[in-house]
């Protein structure tokens, strides 16, 4: 009968189990297990004993797991997969080891599918069992993670944990409470061996467990402040990995109580939490996260107010040294914490202590090349930005802390260093000079660090950035008046360079490094400079073109009417600006300032000097740019600014030119070309009206014309023509009102001088000769008859057209006179410009003669022809190309008639020069290295045929020219007479008398 059978089975079961303690094989037979499982349904009264039996099975399994015979002989670790590996005995015992699995599966299905009453029962049973087994079979103390790994390898333990987990999911609220209670009770009973279970299972109701553990801990802590909290901390630490949110919530809750203590226990909250953090980094991290989250000024007040309460705890009173290391253990928010402390440091001394100690420790660790979590925090992007911000703070503590932190992190992450340098350079320190301090401190690097990154890449980075900004016009709208990043950067670099120059100001930065770095970055700087200056030049040229176009339009409306439309008022006054233009204007002003700064910087770091070697393309580029900058500088609005800009460029030019010959060549060529062609308008050049050249219909282009006929005298380009048939007269150039601006011209000459002057050999005229040759090249269009000698006067007919053109060049570019003047002062450089002098002389001669032919015209004082003649004579005299009596000719020439002038020019000047070819050979070098033509020697003594004409003419006008005559002839002869009296001369003196 079934019923009887059931009781028999029960009897059998009881007998087997109660006798089977010594014989695991019997106990673990699958039949018995099945029987037991059947009882759960058929014979519910046996539930307890069946579970007792299951506990036995689990214990057998655990016993096997920990027993040496089941251990892997090689590794010593327990063999978990016995079926696959292991020796024979292990394989024999495998069924016993795995026997609990059957139970686990059955119970799990009960939990999942059975009535809900099973869950709490199985959960409690499993918990108790796990606690018991873990306590019984743990041989040595292990960390929680190790325990978890160790025990979860055991199939029975794993099964039990799985069961508990599945049960927990089925529990109702009150049942859950009960389970937590059971768990914590077990934890109290076996604190050493149960902690891993709490940690593992805590995940099922993390907040509750965490809160309970914390409460347990604090109670123990209050009872005995020296107690060890390893288990509690271990559990929290383990649980943090998955349940940080709950831990934080618990901390938040506890801190809330701790800051507003009501119960006596609350006073211990803060000391307890701080002590707990000593046990684990992750707990510390969580606490800090919470703190950072809830921190506020008010809270700080509360802390200050409440801290005496906490001090009553002895542990807390003595824990400050451990706190200092705390910050180094943070993975996150460490920098925030330090900066917060720094912000408060002014107020509280302990903050300073904390900061000092922490920072010292930190730097020590870095020096020892130790790795620590805070480094990772510092390397975060967000932290980086925060530190940058703090670097600019006006609070010195904060700023210094930030800088030190950046230095620390830089030793490991050079890119952060570079970025920081770059970032700080971009900021403006006009309002807050602290920032530049940060920058200087940062550039100094971390003392004692061996492989600290250099700052050159940082410079390069910022310059690269700026290059982009400058090249691609920054379209981002910026409020007017904000200095651009480029401006800031160069301003900062300038300050640094200047400080560096004055040596003692920035001891942090190693002497050579800054200069070296900046010179390394020179290509970049030059690129930026290039871009800036070229834009300025474009703008300048555009403005000039607009101005002249306007002028010519006005003039054209007065077609062929000689009245001047262009008066002084218009010049320099810009037409009213449109609003869009204003912005452009603003942009140009800032660009100009940038250019000034760059040049300042270049001067400060001695760019182009011999010590800093540059590659040739850079040299050339820099030379060209320097000249461009000079011209741009001339457009500055006020005299002072113009002078300042020019002085900058002078020193720039001078340094380059004296260092590199090639630089000089380029500079000079650029200067002269600029003055004559590109930027002549700055120096009073008369604009060529476009009408003249550009309105030629295409089919009339010279090159086409030349295909049909030889151009000859009919060429419409001929300067001799006063117009083109069909178009009327060409407009007359407005000569009178446009005088060359003396100030600018002076600056220009100084620039030339700066290029030519050789600091080492002051008498070297090489540069001036170069200018002279350049002038010939640029002014004279013809390569024919460009030599030094003067031909017969008749021969000038052949070269007349070219001569006229040269003359015209002098008219349109008055600055040429000044340049020639400069050259004339440095003998024998002017000789090379012989062709220009010849052209001037020939045209003047021709014109004077022409005047003579027509009819008498009174020569106005400022007549172009007269001025030209005078200037030419002056030049000849200055350069010692004509001998003494003639040297004064320019003073008196205006007193002669045009015919007389023609005669004088022909007889005295032309013929003399024809016979004494103006060449360097005329001069000799004296002891000082000066080129000199000794007029005292017989060689320089003027043969009478060149002087007599003048003498006669002067004698005719002795009334007016008396004093001159005396000076020119008598004085000279008197002096000569001392050595060798000349009868003719005496005769003349008599005549004169």
């Amino acid at each position, binding site marked *: 009968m079934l019923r009887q059978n059931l009781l028999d089975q029960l009897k059998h079961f009881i007998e087997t189990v109660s006798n089977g303690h010594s014989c695991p094989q019997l106990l673990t037979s699958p039949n018995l297990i099945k029987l037991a499982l059947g009882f759960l*349904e058929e014979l519910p009264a046996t539930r*307890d*004993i069946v579970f*007792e039996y299951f506990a036995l099975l689990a214990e057998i399994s655990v016993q096997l797991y920990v027993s040496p015979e089941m251990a892997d002989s090689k590794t010593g670790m327990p063999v978990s997969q016995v079926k696959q590996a292991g020796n024979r005995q292990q394989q024999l015992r495998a069924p016993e080891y795995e026997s609990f699995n059957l139970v686990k599966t059955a119970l799990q299905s009960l939990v999942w599918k059975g009535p809900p009453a099973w869950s709490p029962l199985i959960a409690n049973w499993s918990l108790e069992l796990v606690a018991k087994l873990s306590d019984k079979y743990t041989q040595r103390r292990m960390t929680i993670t190790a325990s978890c790994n160790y025990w979860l390898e055991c199939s029975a333990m794993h099964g039990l944990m799985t069961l508990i987990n599945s049960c927990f999911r089925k529990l109702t609220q009150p049942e859950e409470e009960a389970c937590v209670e059971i768990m914590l009770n077990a934890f109290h009973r076996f604190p050493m061996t149960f902690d891993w279970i709490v940690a593992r299972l805590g995940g099922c109701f993390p907040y509750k467990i965490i809160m309970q553990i914390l409460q347990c801990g604090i109670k123990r802590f209050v009872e005995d402040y020296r107690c060890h909290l390893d288990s509690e901390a271990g559990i929290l630490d383990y649980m943090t990995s998955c349940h940080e949110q709950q831990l934080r919530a618990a901390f938040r809750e506890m801190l809330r109580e701790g800051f507003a203590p009501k119960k006596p226990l609350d006073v211990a909250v803060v000391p307890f939490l701080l002590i707990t953090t000593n046990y684990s980094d992750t707990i510390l991290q969580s606490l800090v996260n919470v703190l950072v989250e809830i921190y506020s000024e008010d809270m700080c007040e509360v802390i200050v107010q409440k801290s005496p309460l906490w001090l009553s705890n002895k542990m807390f009173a003595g824990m400050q040294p451990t706190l200092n290391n705390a910050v180094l253990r943070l993975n996150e928010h460490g920098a925030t914490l330090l900066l917060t402390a720094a912000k408060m440091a002014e107020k509280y001394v302990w903050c300073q202590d904390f900061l000092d100690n922490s920072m010292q420790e930190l730097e020590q660790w870095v020096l020892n090349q130790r790795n620590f979590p805070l480094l990772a925090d510092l390397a975060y992007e967000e932290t980086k930005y925060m530190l940058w911000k703090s670097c600019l703070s006006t609070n010195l503590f904060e700023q210094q802390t930030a800088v030190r932190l950046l230095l620390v992190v830089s030793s490991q992450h050079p890119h952060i260093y570079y970025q920081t340098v770059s970032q700080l350079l971009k900021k403006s320190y006009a309002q807050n000079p602290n920032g530049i301090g940060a920058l200087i401190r940062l550039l100094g690097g971390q003392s004692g660090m061996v492989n600290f990154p250099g700052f050159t890449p940082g410079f390069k980075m910022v310059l690269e950035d700026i290059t982009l900004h400058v090249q691609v016009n920054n379209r981002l709208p910026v409020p007017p008046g904000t200095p651009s990043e480029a401006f800031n950067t160069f301003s900062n670099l300038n300050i640094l360079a200047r400080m560096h120059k004055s040596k003692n100001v920035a001891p942090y930065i190693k002497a050579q490094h800054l200069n070296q770095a900046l010179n390394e970055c020179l290509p970049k700087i030059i690129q930026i400079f290039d871009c800036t200056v070229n834009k300025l030049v474009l703008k300048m040229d555009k403005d000039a073109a607009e101005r002249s176009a306007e002028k010519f339009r006005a003039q054209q409306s007065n077609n062929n009417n000689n009245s001047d439309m262009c008066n002084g008022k218009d010049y320099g006054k810009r037409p009213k600006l449109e609003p869009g233009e204003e912005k452009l204007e603003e942009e140009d002003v800032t660009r100009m300032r940038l250019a000034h700064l760059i040049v300042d910087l270049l001067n400060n770091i001695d760019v182009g000097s011999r010590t800093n070697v540059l590659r040739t393309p850079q040299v050339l580029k820099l030379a060209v740019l320097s000249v461009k900058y000079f011209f741009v500088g001339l457009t500055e609005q006020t005299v002072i600014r113009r002078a300042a800009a020019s002085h900058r460029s002078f020193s720039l030019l001078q340094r380059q030119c004296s260092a590199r010959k090639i630089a000089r060549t380029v500079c000079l060529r650029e200067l002269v070309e600029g003055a004559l062609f590109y930027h002549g308008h700055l120096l009073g050049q008369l604009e060529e009206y476009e009408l003249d050249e550009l309105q030629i219909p295409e089919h009339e282009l010279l090159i086409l014309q030349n295909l049909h006929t030889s151009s000859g005298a009919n060429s419409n380009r001929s300067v001799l023509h006063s117009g083109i048939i069909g178009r009327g007269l060409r407009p007359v150039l407005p000569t009178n009102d446009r005088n060359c601006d003396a100030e600018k011209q002076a600056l220009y000459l100084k620039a030339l001088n700066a290029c030519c002057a050789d600091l080492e050999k002051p008498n070297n005229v090489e540069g001036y000769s170069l200018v002279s040759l350049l002038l010939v090249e640029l002014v004279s269009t013809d390569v024919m008859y460009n030599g030094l000698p003067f031909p017969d006067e008749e021969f000038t007919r052949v070269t007349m057209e070219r001569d006229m053109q040269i003359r015209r060049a002098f008219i349109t570019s008055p600055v040429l006179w000044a340049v020639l003047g400069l050259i004339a002062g440095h003998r024998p450089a002017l000789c090379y410009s012989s062709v220009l002098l010849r052209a001037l002389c020939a045209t003047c001669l021709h014109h004077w003669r022409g005047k003579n032919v027509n009819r008498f015209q009174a020569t106005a004082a400022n007549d172009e022809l007269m001025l030209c003649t005078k200037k030419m004579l002056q030049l000849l005299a200055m350069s010692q190309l004509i001998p003494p009596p003639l040297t004064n000719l320019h003073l008196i020439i205006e007193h002669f008639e045009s015919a007389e002038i023609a005669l004088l020019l022909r007889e005295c000047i032309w013929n003399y020069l024809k016979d004494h070819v103006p060449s360097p050979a005329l001069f000799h070098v004296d002891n000082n290295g000066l080129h000199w033509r000794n007029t005292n020697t017989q060689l320089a003594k003027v043969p009478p045929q060149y002087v007599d004409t003048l003498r006669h003419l002067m004698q005719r006008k002795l009334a007016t020219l008396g004093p001159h005559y005396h000076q020119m002839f008598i004085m000279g002869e008197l002096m000569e007479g001392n050595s060798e009296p000349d009868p003719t001369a005496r005769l003349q003196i008599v005549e004169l008398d």
Partner: protein
Amino acid sequence: MSLSVDNNKSLLRKGDMKLDNYPTCAVEALTRLETLIASRNKQNMVMQIISEYIFLERTAKDGDVRNKSQALPISQMNLFQEFQLIIALIEYFSRPGRDATRNAIFLSLFGSHLNPQRSKLLSRLISTAVSGSVAPLLSSAGTWMQQVGCKTPLSLEVAQNIVSDFISYSRKTPEQLKQLPMVGPHFAANFMVAVADLYLNEQRSQSLNPPPDALLDTITEWMTENPTLCQASQQPLVLPAGAIAMPFATPLAGLLRWVVLAPLVSNRTAYSNLHLSLLRALQQLVSSGESTALPSQDLMQIVKSLQNYCARLGESKTNPEADAAYQKCMERFAQAVQIALSSNCISNQIQLLCVLESLPPHKLMKIVISAHKK
């Protein structure tokens, strides 16, 4: 002193009983008890043998200092020994023998005051007996229950244990429980009394706890299939000479409370079925002419719960006449009262009618009251 003398005597008499070979000694003790129990003056020795050889209990005098404060002795048995004893007891009770002796031994083994181990063992024993359908043992258990009192904590514990074993921890109601009225009608009836007291009882808990569905279904089935089950407890007890039979209790009053109060917490149709079978059972009582089937204090309890409910309704400003649940309660109550009155099984009729009148009015109830008040 006398106890120790007795102890020595028993040891002398039963020299072959050794505690080492449990459960043999327990079986041996049981057979010896049979003879001892007959003589009424050896009660002490009986109790001592039971304690020592059957339950392996040791009193504090035996040297266990910790237990000195406790009046009841502590058992040294482990779970396996308990089950060995259970098997031994079942086997003993299954053997042919006199009912009176068996009942006497059962009552000696499990008196009205038990220590936790023994009560636990009793619960397990009865549960096992139910599982194994051990009729003689169940019969003895039924007698024990009646003698101890169906609503005493001990009985309730046993009942509760059976409910949890066969209902809470069971996926489906086992056949053994369903057939319990056939196997042990006396026990089943007493079990129902106890179980009825456990649920929907405001005296036990603050709120009305409905019985588990499976339990309700089982009891409904019992009542439907065995209309006379309620009268099973009225059978005369087989007791040893000189023993006084305790008064019986029927589950009718408790179950009536279930069905009347059920609409307040549940709307399962099983209650309607149960109600129907209850009414039938009441009707059948007419023939027997017993008047104590429905003790009036049990009915008062129902009235009390209804009054409480009406008070709660009043707090939420609801008219009881508009409350469907209350109306249903009253309807069932009125039907039951009517039949009970007509079959004359209510003890204190007038008092009941007065109390019923004080309840918020109900049509059917009014009719019933007016019909019987004359």
